[in-house]
C-alpha cells in the first residue's frame, strides 16, 4: 500500500516542474526531460518558467519600442532599471556608489544598441549579457581581478531590495557636453518639455532636437567607455 503512495509523493514536485515544458522544445528535448528526473533538471525547469514569465512582457515592450512607441520604451527602461538596480546591488553590495552608474550605463547600452537584439532571442538573455558585460567592465576599471560566472538570465530577477538614488557620475559627464546639447537636454528632461516644446524654446527644429538628444546619449556612452 505504501509503495504507490510514496511513488506519487516523490514524483509530484517533478511534475509540477515538468508541466510547462511540452509547450516548447522539440520532441527530443521533451523526451530527454521525461527520461531524466534529477533535481538539477527540476531546477532548470523552474528557472525556465521564471524567465518565461518575466521575459514575455519585457519582450512585448521591447518590440513596441523598436517600432517607435516611446511610452512602451520608457516603461521597458524603467522596469529594467528596477531589475538592474537589484542585480548590481547584489553583486557589489547595496550601498556601493557604482550601482546607480552601472544601472545608467546598462540602460544606455540597452537603448543605443537595441538593434543588436534578435527578436528570436529571449529579451532577458540579451539584457543580462549586457549587464554582465558592464559589471565585468567595472571590475576591470577598479583593477579588481575577479571572475564573473555566466548565470542564467534569471539572475536579473532575483529578489532583493535597494533604493535608486541619483548618480553623480553621469551628471558630471553631462556637464562636459557642448553648451547647445546641454541646453536641449535641460529643456527636454529637467523641465519636462516635449521635443516640440523644446524645439520652440531653443529655436531649433524638432528633428534637430531629436538628433541632439541622440548625440548626447551617444556622447555619454563614449565617455563612460573612455573613462579609464
Amino acid at each position, binding site marked *: 500500500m505504501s509503495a504507490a503512495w510514496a511513488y506519487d509523493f516523490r514524483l509530484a514536485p517533478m511534475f509540477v516542474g515538468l508541466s510547462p515544458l511540452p509547450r516548447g522544445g522539440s520532441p527530443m528535448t521533451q523526451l530527454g526531460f521525461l527520461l531524466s528526473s534529477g533535481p538539477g533538471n527540476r531546477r532548470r525547469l523552474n528557472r525556465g518558467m521564471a524567465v518565461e514569465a518575466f521575459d514575455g512582457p519585457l519582450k512585448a515592450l521591447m518590440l513596441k*519600442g523598436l517600432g517607435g512607441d516611446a511610452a512602451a520604451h520608457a516603461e521597458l527602461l524603467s522596469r529594467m532599471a528596477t531589475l538592474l538596480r537589484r542585480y548590481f546591488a547584489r553583486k557589489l553590495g547595496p550601498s556601493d556608489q557604482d550601482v546607480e552608474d552601472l544601472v545608467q550605463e546598462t540602460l544606455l547600452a540597452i537603448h543605443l*544598441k537595441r538593434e543588436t537584439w534578435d527578436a528570436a532571442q529571449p529579451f532577458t538573455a*540579451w539584457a543580462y549579457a549586457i549587464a554582465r558585460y558592464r559589471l565585468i567592465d567595472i571590475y576591470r576599471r577598479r583593477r579588481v581581478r575577479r571572475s564573473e560566472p555566466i548565470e542564467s538570465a534569471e539572475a536579473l530577477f532575483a529578489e532583493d531590495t535597494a533604493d535608486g538614488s541619483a548618480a553623480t557620475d553621469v551628471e558630471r559627464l553631462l556637464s562636459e557636453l557642448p553648451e547647445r546639447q546641454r541646453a536641449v537636454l535641460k529643456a527636454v528632461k529637467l523641465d519636462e518639455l516635449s521635443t516640440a516644446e523644446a524645439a520652440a524654446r531653443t529655436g531649433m527644429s524638432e528633428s534637430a532636437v531629436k538628433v541632439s*538628444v541622440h548625440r548626447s546619449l551617444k556622447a555619454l556612452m563614449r565617455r563612460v567607455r573612455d573613462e579609464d
Partner: protein
Amino acid sequence: MKTDDLIAMMASDAKPAARFSIPRRLALVGGATALVALAILVPWLGLRDMGAAVGDTSYWMKTVYTAALALGGFLLAERLARPGVKSRRGAFVAIAGIAVLGAIAIAQLASLPSAEISAALLGSTWDKCPWRIGLLAIPGLIAVLLVMRKFAPTRPALAGAGAGLFVGGVAATVYGLHCGETSAAFTLIWYTAGMAISTAAGALAGWRILRW
C-alpha cells in the same frame, strides 16, 4: 542626473529601429571588400584567363572553399555582434569547409607519384599567396571593424576574429581570380594561411577596439 531623467531622455529618442541591421550592414561590407580587393588586384597582379578558369574544376574548388570560410566568418561575426547568443553555426561551417578540403587534398596527394608531391604542396607561389591575401583583406578589415564597433560584441577578440575571417575569405575568393594554382593541398595550406592572417589581425584589433 537621476535615472528617471535619463529614461525620459531615451524614450524621447525612440525612433522606429531598422530591422536586420546587423546582417545587412555586414553583407554591405562584404560586397565593398570584394570590390576594393578587385580594384587593387586587377592593376597589381591582373586576372588569370577567366575563360579557362570557369571550365576548371580546381578553380571552383578554391572558390567554394574560400567562400565557405567567408560564410563561416560572416555567421560568426553576425552572432558575436550580439550580447547573449551562441555562435556555433559559423564555426561549424568554417571547420566543415576545412575538413572537406582536407579530405580532398589527402586523396589527391595519395594518388600522386612521390616526385610530384612537393610541387602540389608548394606550387610556384606558396611564399607570396598568404601575404597577398592578407594585403587584399586590409581595407575590408578596417571597414568591418568600424561596422562591428556600432554593435555590441561582449567577446571583442572573438568577434574581431570572426569579422577577420569573413573579410579574409572574401579577399581570398577575389585572389582566386588571379591565382592559377590548382592543387587542393596548396589551397588548404596557403589560402588558409592567408585567411588566418586576416583572422588573427581581426582578433588582435578587436580585442583593442571592439570594447564598449
